[in-house]
């Protein structure tokens, strides 16, 4: 059986460090390079930050702002999904453009999806208004040697 994790936790910034560490630790049996591990860590952090910042405007109660993180190993890749159950993204294509942010006044760089796309091998986004957003990412480990 291939190893996996499922984490359900409040979308608050205090959980970012834990989430990215847990997912990257799952990948260790694939013997990733330091760079591959950091790519995973950074991409998970970007996805979780999006949930923390954008998914649940005005919702303070922790149980009303949860995210589900699932990660699964296969022989030479780790597959990760980060799901929120929030407001959804109006225009996914627009959201993925470099420098695009709905919150420029907060000094947001708008580079989250750009980093995910360049650090991971596959990034897919599915979003539905008032139902939430799922980001699926796949990172192949040791791709250079294949």
């Amino acid at each position: 059986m291939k190893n996996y994790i499922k984490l359900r936790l409040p979308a608050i910034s205090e959980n970012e460090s834990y989430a990215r560490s847990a997912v990257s630790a799952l990948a260790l049996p694939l013997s990733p390079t330091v760079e591959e591990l950091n790519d995973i860590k950074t991409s998970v952090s970007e996805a979780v930050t999006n949930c923390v910042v954008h998914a649940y405007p005005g919702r303070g109660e922790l149980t009303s702002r949860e995210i589900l993180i699932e990660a699964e190993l296969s022989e030479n890749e780790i597959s990760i999904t980060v799901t929120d159950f929030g407001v959804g993204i109006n225009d996914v294509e627009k959201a993925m453009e470099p420098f695009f942010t709905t919150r420029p006044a907060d000094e947001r760089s708008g580079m989250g999806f750009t980093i995910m796309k360049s650090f991971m091998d596959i990034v897919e986004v599915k979003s539905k208004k008032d139902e939430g957003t799922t980001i699926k990412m796949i990172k192949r480990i040791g791709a250079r040697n294949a």
Partner: protein
Amino acid sequence: MNISFELSGKILTAFIFGELDECSAGAAKAALDEVISKRGFNGFIFNLSGLTFMDSTGIGVLLGRYKKLLAQNAAVYIDPPPPAIDKVLRTSGIYNVIKKL
């Protein structure tokens, strides 16, 4: 995350340690802005060699401070960071705006 400062002549260096993400961004902005607002320097260096993690939220923190420093006519630089941080900075294109030392 924590930050220490060192003034050498007219060059102020901010040493940022630990993890710079959404969780620590508010504290980082406050600490940097307090020192930046006191002036007394004409060059400013972000020393990121002690950073163990940074994502795009950190890019926003650096660019926001850069705008304030530019308004004060300070020259701004980034001291070459560890490889993982450097990759985030390169991917974001920040070196087109803030030069590497």
